[in-house]
């Protein structure tokens, strides 16, 4: 453990934590998206899937705790490294100019923090029922918790959908830099594959953002009722 | 004064072994009690400091740059020679020795040069072990190129950055010793004075270039490896900071200055564009393998080079030296270029340039091949001149490049002041009147890695460690001299900038003591230079203060020494009434402009002794004896 702690103290070690946790979060984001997309397959599919997840019982809690730890580790490392980076240049340049860095790259902490804020809201909204306690009481005809209705009700509110849409654009943005960066951080760099690594981030970012956004849009457009 | 070269007797192959076997050693337990000062962190100084540190001595190493990694050795491009005979093309220690002797036009000491050739192979071994990424063949073996007209391929290289890679290797070893605390590094520190106690070199006075503090350091021996003084000509291929200060101030304390007038001029540099020019950039000589040198036949022909038809071009090197053509020796082709420009045929701004034309080679081999061979050089040329040399011929002109002269040293690399050792370009020892390409790097490393560890130990073994403390009056006195000099420079408060004096001095020296020297010109220079110096001390304007980072003050100190050195150079050039190597006296040449050496009267090293300010220095002679080689005429016809 102390070896691991020591590793996390170093800049490159902390970056590895970012990369590994980022990848795990990315995996979660993909899985979560696939599950959510069941909304297009109808009420029974989505609710059945949600029910199966809940049935996992203790395992679900394990996954939740792991996700929480991973998320906190990602955020914690991010903030620590960010602080160090800011301290590394106490006096800014009078003229700022760049040659190649991207907007997504320069704002990665900001997009991350906004995602964090969004995640808190999202949990309160759908998971904990803090904003809308009535959602948790919804039941479908089969007697299962009605996740499908919850989504439709939730996204019928244009303002709420707006928040989700913006957040998902930010997530896409975050991943467009983050994922490409992942390869470099863990040492994957090879002239033959670099063009591919370079594209993975932006492509995954766009796909994920479109995938998630499709749900509130479909609700707003009345395609999912 | 009798100059003892201390070259051991016996057959040349075993002189160094013999000397090493006779040398005294320092007991390992005592080594850490000895302090050694090494001024300079280039190949010579860096290697010496690191090796002495490894051996266990306590070393203080000094350089004026912000890091030892920036010494001017970093700029060497072409490569480093070694008699490895990896190519099986007939190379041997003897051949490298002979080529170096002949290259130096038989004005160097046989024993030293032979030792250099002997040590060359071990240098490559050492460098590879340190991680120097030399060029390799596909099979993983080291690659070689031929260089500077040698008939064998014995030059090891790392792209066009051989000096950089060697220096970074040395720097890494130095860093290891700094981390091990055997070496204390003092960057941004300039040596001001040598301290001599009871006739022995026992310390130095320095100025901290950031705070301006004057400090004294006492040691059991002092090693100077401060590089070359080519910037005495103002424009040269050397770095802006290269100087003569350290060795000149040692000269003033009694060390002899040998062959100061032997300064090498490199034929392929990018020409001057105007008064603002601050330094000249070397283009590797390898370009001459494929480029053809020409000027318009008619003086003042200002046509675009591409419009000048074949019959109006004079490929003068091919014409005058048909056997070697564009590959004629450095000094020969430099002088030929100057002559063309003097005749008004020079090209480019100011008419100081000749064409180096690749169009034939591009036609013959294709642009791809030329790009592969010289792409980085063409890029560099483009960066500086804004011209595309694939389309328009390059313009080149000779520039001052290397100082063969330096402090006089014996076979042990010790000057006539006991305890004062001088290594690398700062000494005079191995290159005679002209240096072969790729042999300065070799010399610096041989001196630092393989000679000084023995010879310095031999000296120290005869000395009681820590015998002299910095509290001795000699140190205070030397410190005061340094302070006084700085005070004087700052108090002139005249009207002209330091650089303006430097530029003026450079022009005079280039004009009268450059590629071609004559009695008349030198006599004239000996009148002008003291006049410039006089004005300098009355009219120089040095801004800023003594107790801060003050680049103007640094420059002023260096230029003051250059003004003195320039006079010494002219004295030396005037006294050497022969032509040899790079030293061409107009009076001593054949009808075709070939140098006429005078072995009967001038087969000696000129070693100058300082006699005090305002006094003419006195010439001491170390006769050169040749037991092994046979003095031959150099001919490139």
């Amino acid at each position, binding site marked *: 453990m102390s070896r691991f702690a020591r590793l996390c103290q*170093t*800049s*490159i*070690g902390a*970056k*590895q934590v970012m990369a590994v946790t980022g990848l795990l979060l990315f995996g979660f984001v993909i899985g979560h998206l696939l599950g959510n997309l069941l909304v297009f397959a109808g009420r029974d599919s989505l609710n059945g899937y949600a029910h199966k997840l809940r049935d996992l019982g203790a395992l679900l809690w394990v996954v939740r705790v792991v996700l929480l730890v991973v998320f906190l580790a990602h955020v914690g490392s991010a903030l620590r490294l960010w602080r160090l*980076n800011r*301290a590394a*240049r106490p006096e800014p*340049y*009078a*003229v700022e*100019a*760049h*040659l*190649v*860095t991207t907007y997504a*790259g320069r704002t990665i902490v900001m997009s991350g923090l906004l995602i964090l804020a969004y995640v808190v809201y999202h949990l309160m909204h759908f998971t904990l029922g803090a904003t809308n306690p009535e959602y948790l009481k919804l039941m479908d005809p089969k007697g299962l918790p009605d996740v499908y209705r919850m989504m439709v009700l939730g996204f019928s509110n244009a303002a709420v959908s707006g928040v989700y849409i913006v957040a998902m654009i930010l997530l896409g943005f975050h991943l467009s830099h983050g994922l490409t960066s992942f390869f*470099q951080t863990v040492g994957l*760099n*090879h002239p033959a594959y670099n063009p591919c690594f370079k594209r993975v981030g932006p492509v995954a970012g766009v796909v994920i953002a479109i995938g998630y956004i499709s749900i509130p849009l479909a609700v707003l457009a009345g395609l999912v009722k | 004064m009798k100059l003892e070269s201390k070259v051991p007797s016996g057959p040349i192959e075993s002189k160094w072994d013999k000397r090493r076997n006779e040398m005294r050693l320092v007991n390992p337990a005592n080594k850490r009690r000895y302090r050694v000062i090494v001024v300079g962190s280039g190949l010579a100084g860096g290697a010496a400091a690191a090796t002495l540190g490894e051996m266990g001595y306590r070393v203080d190493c000094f350089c004026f*740059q*912000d890091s*030892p*990694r920036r010494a*001017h050795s*970093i*700029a060497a491009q072409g490569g480093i020679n070694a008699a490895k005979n990896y190519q099986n093309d007939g190379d041997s220690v003897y051949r490298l020795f002979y080529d170096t002797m002949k290259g130096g036009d038989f004005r160097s000491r046989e024993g030293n040069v032979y030792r250099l050739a002997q040590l060359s192979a071990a240098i490559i*071994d*050492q460098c*590879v*072990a*340190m*991680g120097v*990424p030399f*060029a*390799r063949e596909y099979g993983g073996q080291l690659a070689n190129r031929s260089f500077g007209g040698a008939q064998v391929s014995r030059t090891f290289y790392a792209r066009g*950055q051989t*000096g*950089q*890679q060697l220096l970074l290797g040395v720097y*890494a070893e130095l*860093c*290891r010793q*700094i*981390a091990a605390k055997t070496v204390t*590094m003092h960057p941004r520190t300039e040596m001001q004075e040598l301290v001599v106690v009871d006739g022995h070199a026992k310390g130095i006075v320095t100025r901290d270039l950031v705070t301006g503090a004057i400090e004294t350091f006492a040691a059991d021996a002092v090693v100077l490896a401060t590089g070359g003084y080519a910037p005495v000509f103002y424009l040269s291929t050397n*770095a*802006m*900071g290269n100087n003569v200060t350290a060795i000149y101030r040692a000269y003033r304390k009694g060390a002899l200055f040998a062959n100061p007038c032997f300064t090498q001029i490199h034929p392929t540099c990018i020409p001057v564009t105007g008064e*603002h020019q*601050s330094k000249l*950039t070397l283009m590797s000589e390898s370009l001459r393998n494929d480029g053809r040198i020409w000027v318009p036949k008619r003086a003042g022909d200002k046509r675009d080079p591409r419009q000048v038809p074949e019959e109006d071009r004079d490929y003068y090197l091919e014409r005058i030296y048909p056997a070697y053509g564009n590959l004629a020796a450095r000094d020969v082709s430099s002088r030929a270029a100057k002559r063309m420009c003097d005749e008004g045929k020079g090209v480019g701004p100011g008419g100081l340039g000749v064409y180096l034309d690749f169009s034939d080679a591009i036609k013959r081999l294709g642009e791809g091949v030329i790009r592969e061979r010289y792409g980085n050089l063409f890029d*560099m040329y483009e960066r500086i001149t804004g011209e595309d040399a694939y389309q328009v011929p390059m313009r080149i002109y000779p520039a001052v490049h290397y100082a063969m002269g330096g402090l006089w040293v014996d076979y042990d690399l010790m000057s006539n002041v006991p305890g004062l050792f001088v290594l690398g370009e700062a000494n005079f020892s191995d290159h005679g009147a002209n240096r072969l390409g790729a042999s300065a790097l070799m010399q610096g490393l041989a001196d630092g*890695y*393989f000679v000084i560890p023995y010879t310095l130990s031999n000296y120290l073994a005869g000395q009681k460690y820590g015998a002299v403390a910095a509290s001795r009056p000699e140190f205070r006195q030397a410190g005061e001299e340094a302070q006084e000099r700085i005070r004087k420079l700052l108090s002139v408060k005249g009207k002209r900038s330091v*650089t303006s004096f430097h530029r003026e001095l450079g022009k005079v020296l280039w004009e009268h003591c450059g590629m071609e020297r004559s009695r008349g010109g030198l006599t004239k220079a000996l009148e002008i230079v003291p006049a410039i110096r006089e004005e300098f001390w009355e009219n120089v304007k040095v*801004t800023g203060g003594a107790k*801060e980072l003050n*680049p103007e003050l640094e420059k002023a100190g260096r230029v003051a020494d250059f003004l003195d050195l320039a006079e010494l150079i002219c004295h030396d050039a005037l006294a050497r009434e022969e032509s040899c190597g790079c030293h061409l006296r107009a009076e001593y040449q054949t009808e075709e402009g070939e140098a006429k050496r005078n072995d009967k009267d001038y087969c000696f090293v000129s070693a100058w002794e300082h006699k005090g300010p305002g006094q003419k220095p006195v010439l001491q002679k170390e006769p050169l004896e040749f037991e092994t080689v046979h003095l031959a005429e150099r001919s490139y016809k």
Partner: protein
Amino acid sequence: MNLTLRIWRQRNAQERGSLVSYEAKDISPDMSFLEMLDVVNERLIAKGEEPVAFDHDCREGICGMCSLVINGLAHGGRRATTTCQLHMRHFKDGDVITVEPWRSRAFPVVRDLVVDRTAFDRVIHAGGFVSSNAGGAPDANALPVPRDDAEKAMDAAACIGCGACVASCPNGSAMLFVAAKVSHLAHLPQGHPERAQRVLGMVHQMDLEGFGNCTNHTECEAVCPKEVSISHIAKMNREFIRASVLEA
């Protein structure tokens, strides 16, 4: 041409500095940027003012001594060019040029445009070498090195230690500099015996010096006058992971 320069002036490490404007008249396009500053300095001296201090030595792009952030870009931002090789023909008459020192906590300003880069030396002290005493080396050809490895090592070893990577990195990170040395020696068999201590030691020192860390902006690679590639950073990351996981 005529230019307006805004140059950072700061007397010493303790005092605060500021940008000061100077007119640079009759500048020739053939001058290098440093020669242009020489001219400005000569004129300042003539007026009895203190010239601008800046670091430089070889003036041919190899010693790594020159620095300067020009209009926000280290070494002016031209491909494979140090400030000393940057020529005025790339500027236009009437341009306003802002000249600042490298900005990094690890590179404190010494005076005007001069900064203290000894942090880089200390990183090398922490392991950027092969321990091999003079005299004991085996024959240079005893250990063949594949040409490709030698070339890759050379690509990394081309680093001149100027610090442009740090200056240009939005995070003030020295990863490219440190990686260049780690990767150079990791590509050669001679570097292998010490590869683990080397990367661990150097990264540790890099962190101690107060450099930032890498978030893959790749600005460093873009301004690097020797075009050292960020692939060496990836290589260092691999070396670091390997050393952290495997070594005692």
